[in-house]
C-alpha cells in the first residue's frame, strides 16, 4: 500500500478529538447492539453450524427452523439453547432433520434450564466452533493463494463490477475483466435482495440489475476466480454485499466461501433502504465480527451520501461517517487493513476549483486513516449521458485517486446512468485507468500541497465541520441524528423501518455461541 506521508498539516489534537467524539457517539449504539438480537443474527448461527438448503418452496431451512423456535419460545433467549436442547434430547440426529421436523410441527421447542441448559450450551458451542474452524480454514487458504499468486503490482487495486443477473453469464465476464486488468470483481446484487428476509438458495440465473447473493453463487464465482488467479499469476479478489435484512447470514456465507471483500456500511441500510436502525446496528456488529475473523476487507458506503446531498456542503458528513464506521469496525475486531472506508468524486464539475476540492477531501481521508485501504468511488451524479465528457471526468477521478494514494479504485464507466456497462465501456474504462496510473501513478511522491494553500485549508475546514457535527451528534444521540436527517438528508426514526419485527431485546439467559467464541478470540 502507498504509505501516506503526512502532507496535510492536520493538528494531531484535533484528529484525536474527532476520534474520541466518534467513540462517544458510537458507544451507546454498541451497547444497544449488545442488548438485542435479531432473526438474522440467530439464523447466521444456524448457518455457521452447517444448516443449509431450502424446502420445496425455496424457503431456507434456517428460516423454517428459526420461525418455529421463535413461535415456541420467542427470540429473546437466542435460538441456540432451544435448538441444541432439542438435539441433545434426541429429537433429531442433526440440524437438517430437526429443521424438517420443525417445519412439519412434529417437534416442540423449550427453553432448557439447569443441567439441560448446560448441555445445550456445550453442544451449541461445539457446533459453532466447528463452523468457525471452516472460516479459519478459508482464511488460511486465501493467505496461501496470495503467497503463491501474489497481490496486484500497483495501488490502487482496480475494482470492477459485473452484474448480469445470471451467475453463468457473470463468470465469463468476471474472468474477462480480470484478464483485462481488474484486481477485484464485485458481483452486484439483484435490486431488492436487501429487503428479502431470507437468503435465496442455489445457483441463480434471474435477477434485476444484479445477481442474487447465494452460497452457491459465491462458491461458483470464487472457484472461477481461483482459476483466473492461477492463469494470471495474481490473486483476484471477490466482493459481494453484506447489507440489507440478511447481513449477518451473508457475512457468514462469505466467510465460509472465502469472499475477500464485503460491502458493509454502518448506516447505509437505515438511510437508503429504510431498514430499522436497531436491526441494522445489531446485524452489523455481528457481521463485522465475522468479517474480522474471516480476514475479509469491508467496504463502507459513504459515497452514497454524496449522491443525495451536495458533495461540497456534505463533505464533512462523509468524514463523520468514516470515523463512525472506523469505531464500529474496530469495536467488532476489524483491523486497519480491513477498513475499505468509502468516499467519492461527486463534486459538481462546473463549480470553480472542483478538482482541487476533490483532492482536498481525498487527502483528508487518506491522512485521517493512513493504514486503511480507502475505497475511491467514481462520479455518478454528474454523468449526464454525454459519454465524452464522462470519459474525461473519469480520467480526472483516476488522477485524483493516483495523486492521493487511494487503496481501492472502483472503475468509473462513461455510460453510467445510460446503460449497464457494455463490453466496450469496460475496456475503455480500464484503458483510462491504465493510462492514468501508468502516466501519473507515482505522482503522489511529488505532490505536496502548499501548507497554507487552498487544498490544505479546505481539508482543515472539512475536519473542523466534522468535529462540529460530531459534537452535535454526541449531544443529541446518534439515533436521533439519523432520525433528523443528518446523513444523506434521509430521516429515519428508530421505531420505524423494515425488519423491526425481527428484533428482540436479549433476556438474561440469552446465549449465542458464535458471539461468545468471536469475542473470546478478540
Amino acid at each position: 500500500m502507498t504509505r501516506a506521508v503526512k502532507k496535510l498539516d492536520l493538528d494531531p489534537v484535533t484528529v484525536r478529538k474527532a476520534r474520541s467524539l466518534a467513540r462517544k457517539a458510537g458507544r451507546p449504539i454498541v451497547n444497544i447492539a449488545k442488548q438485542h438480537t435479531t432473526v438474522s443474527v440467530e439464523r447466521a448461527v444456524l448457518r455457521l453450524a452447517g444448516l443449509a438448503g431450502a424446502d420445496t418452496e425455496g424457503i431456507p431451512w434456517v428460516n423454517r427452523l428459526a420461525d418455529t423456535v421463535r413461535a415456541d419460545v420467542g427470540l429473546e433467549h437466542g435460538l441456540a439453547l432451544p435448538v441444541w436442547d432439542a438435539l441433545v434430547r434426541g429429537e433429531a440426529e442433526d440440524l437438517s432433520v430437526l429443521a424438517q421436523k420443525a417445519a412439519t410441527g412434529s417437534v416442540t421447542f423449550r427453553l432448557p434450564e439447569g443441567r439441560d441448559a448446560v448441555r445445550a450450551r456445550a453442544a451449541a458451542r461445539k457446533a459453532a466452533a466447528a463452523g468457525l474452524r471452516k472460516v479459519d480454514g478459508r482464511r488460511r487458504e486465501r493467505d496461501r493463494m496470495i503467497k503463491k499468486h501474489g497481490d496486484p503490482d500497483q495501488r490502487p487495486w482496480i475494482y470492477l463490477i459485473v452484474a448480469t443477473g445470471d451467475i453463468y453469464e457473470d463468470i465469463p465476464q468476471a474472468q474477462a475483466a480480470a484478464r483485462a486488468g481488474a484486481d477485484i470483481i464485485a458481483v452486484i446484487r439483484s435490486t431488492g435482495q436487501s429487503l428479502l428476509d431470507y437468503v435465496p438458495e442455489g445457483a441463480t440465473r434471474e435477477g434485476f440489475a444484479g445477481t442474487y447473493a447465494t452460497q452457491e453463487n459465491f462458491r461458483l464465482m470464487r472457484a472461477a476466480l481461483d482459476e483466473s488467479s492461477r492463469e494470471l499469476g495474481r490473486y483476484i479478489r471477490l466482493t459481494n454485499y453484506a447489507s440489507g435484512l440478511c447481513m449477518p447470514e451473508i457475512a457468514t456465507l462469505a466467510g465460509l466461501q472465502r469472499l475477500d471483500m464485503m460491502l458493509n456500511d454502518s448506516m447505509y441500510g437505515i438511510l437508503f433502504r429504510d431498514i430499522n436502525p436497531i436491526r441494522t446496528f445489531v446485524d452489523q456488529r455481528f457481521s463485522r465480527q465475522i468479517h474480522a475473523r474471516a480476514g475479509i476487507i469491508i467496504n463502507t458506503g459513504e459515497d452514497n451520501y454524496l449522491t443525495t446531498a451536495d458533495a461540497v456542503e456534505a463533505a464533512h458528513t462523509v468524514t463523520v461517517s468514516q470515523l463512525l464506521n472506523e469505531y464500529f469496525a474496530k469495536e467488532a475486531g476489524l483491523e486497519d487493513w480491513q477498513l475499505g472506508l468509502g468516499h467519492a468524486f461527486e463534486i459538481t464539475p462546473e463549480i470553480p476549483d472542483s478538482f482541487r476540492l476533490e483532492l482536498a477531501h481525498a487527502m483528508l481521508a487518506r491522512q485521517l486513516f493512513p493504514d486503511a485501504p480507502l475505497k475511491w468511488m467514481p462520479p455518478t451524479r454528474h454523468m449526464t449521458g454525454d459519454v465524452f465528457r464522462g470519459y474525461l471526468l473519469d480520467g480526472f477521478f483516476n488522477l485524483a485517486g493516483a495523486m492521493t494514494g487511494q487503496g481501492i479504485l472502483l472503475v468509473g464507466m462513461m455510460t453510467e446512468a445510460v446503460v449497464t456497462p457494455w463490453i466496450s465501456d469496460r475496456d475503455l474504462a480500464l484503458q483510462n485507468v491504465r493510462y492514468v496510473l501508468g502516466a501519473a501513478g507515482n505522482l503522489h511522491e511529488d505532490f505536496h500541497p502548499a501548507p497554507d494553500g487552498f487544498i490544505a485549508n479546505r481539508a482543515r475546514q472539512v475536519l473542523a465541520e466534522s468535529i462540529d457535527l460530531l459534537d452535535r451528534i454526541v449531544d443529541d444521540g446518534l439515533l436521533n441524528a439519523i432520525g433528523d436527517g443528518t446523513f444523506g438528508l434521509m430521516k429515519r426514526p428508530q421505531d420505524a423501518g423494515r425488519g423491526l419485527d425481527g428484533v428482540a431485546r436479549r433476556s438474561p439467559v440469552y446465549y449465542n455461541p458464535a458471539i461468545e467464541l468471536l469475542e473470546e478470540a478478540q
Partner: protein
Amino acid sequence: MSIIRPYGDTTGDGMVQMSFTLPVPHDKRAEGAAIQLANKMGMDPALVVHAKPMGPDFTFFVVYGPVNHLVDTSKVEVIERDYPLLSPKDANLAIRKGLRRRLTVVGACIGTDAHTVGIDAIMNIKGFAGEKGLEYYRELKVVNLGAQVAVPELVRRARAEKADAILVSQVVTQREAHVLNTKEMSAAFREAYSEDTRPVLVAGGPRFTEAMAGELGVDRVFGRGTTPGEVASYLVDALVTRRKHTPSRRTA
C-alpha cells in the same frame, strides 16, 4: 428549411461518427464487416478510423463517414409544452389564489428501485440544474417517501395525506421494470379512487418518453433533464388553472 443532413464541418456533408463492437477477432475481415455494417446503416463511404481487439473474441470500432439519409424536420413529432412556465413566486401565488390551501404532492421511487436521484432532484429543496426543488415552494406540501415504496403503501399514504398529485420516479429499468411498475401504480390509483377524485399521476425517469403517458395510465410523463420548475408549473396548470371551475371535487 425542413430537409437537413448531419453537419461535420460543411453544410450538407452528412458526417456521422459511431462506435460499436462486433463479436469477432480483430483482423482484416473484421474491419470489412464493420464497413459492411456502416454501409447498411446508410454510411457510404465508411471510414474505420479505429479498430481494437478486446480479448480474443471481440473487436471495438470507431467509424466515420457521411450518411445518405435526409431528415425532414417538418415531420418530427414531439409533445410541446402545453402549460405556461411559472417562477416559484408565480406558482405559489396561483395556488394561493386558485386553491386557497396548500397543494399536496406525494413522491416515491416505487417497486424495488432504490435510486432516488430523480425524485430527489425534483422534490428536495436542493433541486436540480440550478432550480430549487418542490420543497422550496411555500404553497406546496411535499411528502417524499423515498426509495422502494410498495404501491399499496403509496396509495395508503396518498389517502392519508390527501394528495393532490403523485410523483413516481423510476431509474433502474432492466427488463422494462419501469413500465410494469408504473402501470401497476396507475392501476392501483384508478381502483382506489373515482376518476374525479383521483390525484394527478406523474411518472418520471430517464427511460420514459413523454408520449408514453397513455400506455402507462398516468396524466403526465417527464423524461431526462426535467427541472423542478417544469413539474411545479405543470401541477399548477393541471390542478389549479384547469380545474378552477370544479372546486368541489375534493371531498375524499
